[in-house]
Structures are given as C-alpha cells and as structure tokens.
C-alpha cells in the first residue's frame, strides 16, 4: 500500500496477557519508529529501527516491552503481561532514512485496551 499500515486497529485484552502489534512501513523506508499516545496526551517515543537493528531502545517503558523488525519490512511490538497502564494508542511511523531532517509518516495506530 501507499502508506504505513498497522494491525489490529483495535485490541482488547485482559490484564496479564501478551499482545503483539504489527506495523508495515512504507516500501523503501529504512527507518521505523514506535510511539505511544495515552488518551488526551502527546506522542511518546518508544523505539527506533534502522533496517532491522534498533540502536535506541531507551523509550521502552519496561522489560515487558520488546520489538523486532524483519529486514526493512514488518515490525512487531510485543507487550508481555499487559497492565492497565499499557492502555493507549500505539503508533508506528516510517521514514526514508533515519536522519534528523527526514519526515516521519504515521500509520493509523492500534488502540490497546487492557481490562
């Protein structure tokens, strides 16, 4: 497709369960980013990929959060033993390179609700 796609669009889970969120970046984009947006708040950086390596994982809130990327393609964000405070919209973005002046294009997000 032409844009960044994410799946699922909505996910409701029970506290303690694991969830996987998927992101398909724009074709040809080498850089991929994950952000979290809590209700009514701004975007919070989680992790950045250049290719399939993640030089910066500093934004991951805890060791329950992990992410992988296959080559310059799909990325998966996994949250283990979900907690209610994990409820948020998880947004993925991609850019052509990972430079300071590169535009990041966002996907529609996955709305995660932890009951």
């Amino acid at each position: 497709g032409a844009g960044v796609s994410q799946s699922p669009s909505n996910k409701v889970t029970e506290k303690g369960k694991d969830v996987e969120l998927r992101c398909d970046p724009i074709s040809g984009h080498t850089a991929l980013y994950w952000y979290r947006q809590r209700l009514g708040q701004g975007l919070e950086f989680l992790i950045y990929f250049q290719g399939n390596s993640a030089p910066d994982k500093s934004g991951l809130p805890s060791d329950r959060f992990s992410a992988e990327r296959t080559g310059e393609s799909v990325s998966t964000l996994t949250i283990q033993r979900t907690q209610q405070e994990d409820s948020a919209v998880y947004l993925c973005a991609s850019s052509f390179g990972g430079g300071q002046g590169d535009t990041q294009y966002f996907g529609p997000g996955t709305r995660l609700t932890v009951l």
Partner: protein
Amino acid sequence: QQPVQSPQAVILREGEDAVINCSSSKALYSVHWYRQKHGEAPIFLMILLKGGEQKGHDKISASFNEKKQQSSLYLTASQLSYSGTYFCGTVRMDSSYKLIFGSGTRLLVRP
C-alpha cells in the same frame, strides 16, 4: 526536554488567524509540525531545518528561529477543516532521529 507548546487551546471563527508556538531549551536540528484529528493518525504538515527558515503552503506556514530555538505555525483565514490538535515534534542536534513531541495545541474552528 519536551518542547513547550502554546497556547494549549484556541477557538476561532472561520476566517480568523491563529499562531501556535513551540519552544525548546535544547539546540534543535529540525522542527516537525503535525495535525491530528480525533481518532486519526497525525498528518505531516511541514518540517523546518536548522539555519532558520520559513515554509508554507496554502494558508498554513511556519517559521523556525534558530537563535531562540522557537518555531511558530501560522494559520491564516482558518477553515473548518483546520480543527484538530497540532503537535510540534523536535529533533535535537545531539540526536539523529528521535522526535520529541510537545503536548499539543487544540484548535477548534467554528462557523
């Protein structure tokens, strides 16, 4: 080190102008402006790079004052479609890629 946006909220009548400001205490390489409508992904508006510059398209423009580390977004002759939350994202000189977003400015344009 989150950039500070002001005002937090603006209500306009259609056709009025607005200015949204974004300032940082750190040296910036670039400032990115996005608009987000409720329940949707942020949409890219424009990016401004260090060196100080101005950009614009249609009735939306922005400036970046490198000396002050401040960017302003100008909305001229506002339209109903301009309603949404505007976020600035900043990339610091000492960071190659990380966008740090402000808390947003909610804009409502009324008929």
